[in-house]
């Protein structure tokens, strides 16, 4: 869509609201989406010339509805053969207390949230949830999404269309999830936003220019969810985590896209505005909402953000937070990260003991990050030979090119200049 930035921003904001309104009224998610795309296209060409209508959302809903009813009439015969009137049912009861609208909120905003719940349907694979969310809620074109995931457009088109079919097949309605499912479904939505952010963030080191927009999109959508659920601590926690992570982006890539680990980053290049916003969010959430994993992860990112130098990092505080995280959300990756903190606080030996226990965990055995953290601990312990060997082992099993290069360089440094290696950086995420 080529149009001026202001119109484009407005259209992206309105896209899910319009789609929500049309699906709520007529059902037929698939056809409704095409109709909304046509309406957005019409707006993108007409508005810059004729001016933005007084009620832009109403304009779009009217145009999209007209397109949709034309479309439905024209293939009514074909449609009759299809059993699924899945999402044509009227909306169910409003969301449960706590998430319920306060009556003031524009219905368009509730539609955005309902649409997110629909796109992040638990029956879909994470890849499909992501693709559908970007298309239906984010308003990205299939071509843009395909480019972001480095797959052909036809592959992405199939993935999106299969996702819509699956949703129709589950008989899901365009309605907020029932009270009993609300929390679980919100967790899926947040996870999808988290994956979307990660997908873009990981890509920013790869020299791809089209993918960082995924981080921007994830932040934009998480902000939208936060506006709808301002009291939810995990929504705030996730947004804070994204902002605090995004703040480091300018410093995490060296020349040629090489990864710069956290300990070696030029902290003056961190985005202070994002850090301040993230810190305020996580502090607010931790003091007012029930504790959750995203808030703790954001708090850990906040401790890093507050350290002016790597050496000034409050590792005991980070270790305490990882202990807490492991209690409420245990898993091998959390244990691995905790091992890094243990190494910094209590030394490499207890950390290596912790890692030894992880080796029997089949979810982690042979994972390159386990070998990388072990290498880091050996390095701290002064065992350069073992460290180089483990860095090489980690490089062999890494499936990311920048990570492999980083790990190989680390191994080479240790092997080449014994006794003169630079101070070990942490292997925590850059």
């Amino acid at each position, binding site marked *: 869509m080529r149009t001026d930035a202001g119109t484009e921003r407005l259209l992206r904001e309105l896209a899910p609201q319009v789609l929500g309104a049309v699906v709520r009224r007529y059902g037929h998610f698939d056809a409704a989406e095409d109709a909304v795309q046509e309406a957005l296209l019409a707006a993108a060409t007409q508005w810059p010339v004729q001016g933005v209508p007084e009620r832009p959302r109403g304009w779009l809903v009217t145009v999209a509805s007209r397109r949709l009813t034309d479309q439905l009439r024209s293939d009514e015969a074909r449609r009759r053969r299809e059993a699924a009137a899945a999402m044509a049912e009227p909306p169910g009861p409003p969301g449960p207390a706590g998430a319920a609208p306060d009556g003031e909120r524009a219905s368009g905003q509730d539609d955005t949230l309902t649409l997110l719940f629909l796109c992040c349907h638990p029956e879909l694979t994470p*890849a499909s949830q992501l693709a559908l969310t970007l298309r239906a809620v984010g308003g990205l074109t299939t071509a843009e999404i395909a480019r972001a995931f480095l797959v052909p457009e036809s*592959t992405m088109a199939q993935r999106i269309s299969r996702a819509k079919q699956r949703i129709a097949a589950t008989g899901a309605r365009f309605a907020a999830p029932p009270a009993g499912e609300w929390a679980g479904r919100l967790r899926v939505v947040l996870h999808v936003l988290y994956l979307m952010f990660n997908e873009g963030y*990981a890509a920013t080191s790869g020299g791809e220019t089209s993918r960082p927009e995924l981080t921007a999109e994830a932040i934009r959508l998480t902000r939208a969810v936060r506006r709808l659920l301002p009291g939810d601590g995990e929504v705030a926690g996730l947004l804070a985590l994204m902002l605090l992570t995004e703040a480091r982006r300018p410093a995490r890539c060296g020349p040629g896209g090489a990864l710069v680990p956290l300990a070696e980053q030029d902290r003056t290049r961190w985005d202070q505005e994002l850090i301040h916003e993230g810190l305020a969010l996580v502090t607010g959430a931790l003091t007012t909402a029930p504790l959750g994993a995203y808030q703790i992860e954001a708090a850990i990112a906040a401790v890093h953000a507050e350290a002016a130098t790597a050496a000034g990092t409050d590792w005991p505080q980070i270790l305490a937070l990882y202990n807490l995280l492991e209690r409420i959300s245990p898993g091998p990756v959390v244990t691995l990260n905790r091992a890094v903190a243990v190494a910094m606080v209590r030394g490499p030996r207890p950390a290596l003991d912790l890692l030894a226990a992880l080796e029997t965990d089949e979810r982690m055995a042979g994972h390159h990050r386990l070998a990388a953290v072990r290498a880091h601990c050996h390095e701290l312990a002064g065992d350069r030979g073992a460290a180089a060997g483990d860095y090489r082992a980690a490089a062999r099993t890494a499936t990311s090119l920048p990570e492999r290069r980083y790990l190989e360089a680390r191994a080479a440094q240790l092997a080449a200049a014994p006794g003169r290696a630079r101070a070990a950086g942490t292997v925590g995420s850059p």
Partner: protein
Amino acid sequence: MKYLLMIYQNPATWQAMPESDKKAFMDEAGAIVDELTASGEWVGGEGLADPSTAASVRVRDGVPAVTDGPFAEAKEQVVGYCIVDCESRDRAIEIAIRWPDARRWGMEVRPILSPDGVEM
């Protein structure tokens, strides 16, 4: 995550197979491609011409040496490939297990290096 599925065959054995068996193989593979296309996991793939049509290229001291035939002398050769984008290594292996050539010869599943760095 993307995976390369390399299809191995013994070209001599393949040639000696009755046409009906070859067709059954191709149909079976075609059905899997259709299924992967519909699920949005299919990225691409092709069959390769006979290994005897291959050229192996090496440059030493700036001098190219081009020899006819595949890189590795072996009875079993790469005769085709698929690229799939799927959730996990297990899923990629599951696809390879179903590929008809796996029953007679073999498949090799290799993760494709991602240009991306670590996640947050």
